[in-house]
């Protein structure tokens, strides 16, 4: 059974319904007899439909459009940061508050044990039910969230613990209160300080990597993306609004923005794409957690072998060199005439 199927998953959901019906027939002696009398081998039929379902699922999930990936990344059944913390880490102690004026539930974090390592773990937090979503502000962090993140980064550095980060946000909060409380400055500070934090940082984009609100806690030595996560400079709806004055053309904008995990890897802007269970992390959270744990462990091991100087200069170079530009051979230092 497929819970909360997305539009492109409907054919799979329909097959699942059929399979369920057949199984019901198989369990009911009368209906079963009916089927046999009509020359139907119920078990064989179930097998045939299940094989067809697998084939269809593979076909659908390996041909997702960029917009489908956005839908996957936003799926409400996808595991969120606290789900992964529960499945991957031990002894998590959540720490709250920005030590200025608030605790922002859209970013969670604290101390934990990861395998044999003591680590600091943090990430954006979404929720599934209405009340929870409002409480978590849909995963859109306010200035207090970024100040909390900054605090946790400094805690990791002070006690020489690696920092593990999960990214999953549509964007940073942009309302009047956020503006008054310095949302731009707090994001900028996180960006600057994260370049300088002298412990290994492994970032995983688990759902939505939504512009500055995502990047603000994503300046890592290694940046991993789940197969069906996205990472974008602007939400596709916002991009469509600017380009065509029409938010409904978001699917088109998603294509133009090339915001899928595969694109980010091809561009050399992230290090790894982690394959998800068929149908996405939301269909098998435990399997996904296992894959994620393995990948983080492997990357952390690599990073721990580096000296602090090596770690920091690699991190600087990594972000410093991002971009694509052209440059002619001409050496300029030509004065610009001043009128």
């Amino acid at each position: 059974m497929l819970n909360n199927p997305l539009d492109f998953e409907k054919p799979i959901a329909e097959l699942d319904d059929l399979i369920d019906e057949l199984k019901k027939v198989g369990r009911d002696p009368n209906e079963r007899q009916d089927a046999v009398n009509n020359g139907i081998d119920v078990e064989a039929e179930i097998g045939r439909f299940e094989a067809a379902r697998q084939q269809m699922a593979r076909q659908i999930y390996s041909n997702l459009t960029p917009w489908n990936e956005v839908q996957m990344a936003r799926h409400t059944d996808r595991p969120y940061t606290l789900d992964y913390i529960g499945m991957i880490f031990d002894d998590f102690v959540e720490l709250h508050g920005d030590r200025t004026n608030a605790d922002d539930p859209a970013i969670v974090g604290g101390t934990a044990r990861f395998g044999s390592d003591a680590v600091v773990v943090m990430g954006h937090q979404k929720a599934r039910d209405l009340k929870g979503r409002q409480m978590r502000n849909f995963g859109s962090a306010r200035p207090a969230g970024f100040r909390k993140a900054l605090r946790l980064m400094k805690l990791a550095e002070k006690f020489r613990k690696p920092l593990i980060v999960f990214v999953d946000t549509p964007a940073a909060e942009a309302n009047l209160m956020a503006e008054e409380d310095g949302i731009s400055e707090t994001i900028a500070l996180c960006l600057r300080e994260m370049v300088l934090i002298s412990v290994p940082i492994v970032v995983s984009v688990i759902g939505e990597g939504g512009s500055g609100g995502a990047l603000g806690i994503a300046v890592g030595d290694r940046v991993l993306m789940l197969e069906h996560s996205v990472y974008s400079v602007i939400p596709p709806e916002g991009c469509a609004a600017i380009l065509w004055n029409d938010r409904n053309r978001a699917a088109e904008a998603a294509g133009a923005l090339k915001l899928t995990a595969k694109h980010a890897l091809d561009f050399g802007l992230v290090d790894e794409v982690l394959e998800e269970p068929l149908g996405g992390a939301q269909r098998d959270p435990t399997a996904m957690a296992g894959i994620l744990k393995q990948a983080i462990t492997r990357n952390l091991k690599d990073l721990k072998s580096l000296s602090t100087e090596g770690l920091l200069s690699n991190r600087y170079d990594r972000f410093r060199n991002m971009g694509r530009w052209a440059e002619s051979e001409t050496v300029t230092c030509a004065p610009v005439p001043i009128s």
Partner: protein
Amino acid sequence: MNVPEGLVSKCPGCKEITFNKELERNFNVCPKCGFHHRLALTERLALTVDEGSFLEINGEVSSQDPLGFPDYSTKLQRDMAKTNLRDGITTGCATIEGKPLILGIADFNFMGGSMGSVAGEKIVRAMETGERERKPVVLFTASGGARMQEGLFSLMQMAKTSAGAAKLDRAGVPYIVVLTHPTTAGVYASYASLGDVILAEPGATVGFAGLRVGNQNMGVKLPDDFQTSEFQFRCGMVDRIVPRKEMRATLAKLLTFFDVTPAEVRADAQ
């Protein structure tokens, strides 16, 4: 009324008609209401740095179209022709009252001053030059934010320029930001908010989310000066609002304060 073109213009601030000559004499600030009109690069230089002191660096860096984004190449060509620039930001070295600095000036007329790979690269190089030569870095910002036509590449310029700012911070090299109209989104949420000193021109739009991207203030009455220099000043995000005609003198005072030559070196030299 028959007015020869280019002789007068209507002020967007007070809607009054002003003679262009008068406007020029007044630093392109409306003599009636104080509205700060946008400045072209050469005008900004003329008002800010010592005459003839500006040497452009890295002017040969130009944009690519890494995503093959709809109409991006065309827009680039159009704005290169329109502005005679290769990108929205021009960097170089200059002096103000004899004090050397590394300078960056953004031009909003080039694709809304948006920050793509070229802006990020030129800003980081300016910062690295400042760090290497221990010269203060002064950036005049004007940008609608990250250049969405370069997708994730442009988002990463926020981290890239902030890394440059981190380098300056660690090295103890002064970094001064001058927010000009408009400075928003990805630029305001990265290097434009990281100056040791942040100045702003009066009346400039300064804020996080562009209004077209989505007004999320449902039901909340926004203050009249929302997302302006004055608003940010009130919120504690800006050190000073400096009228254009005082900018050069203010920068000169700050550069004197920040003189990075250590006292003992100066004493030795004497």
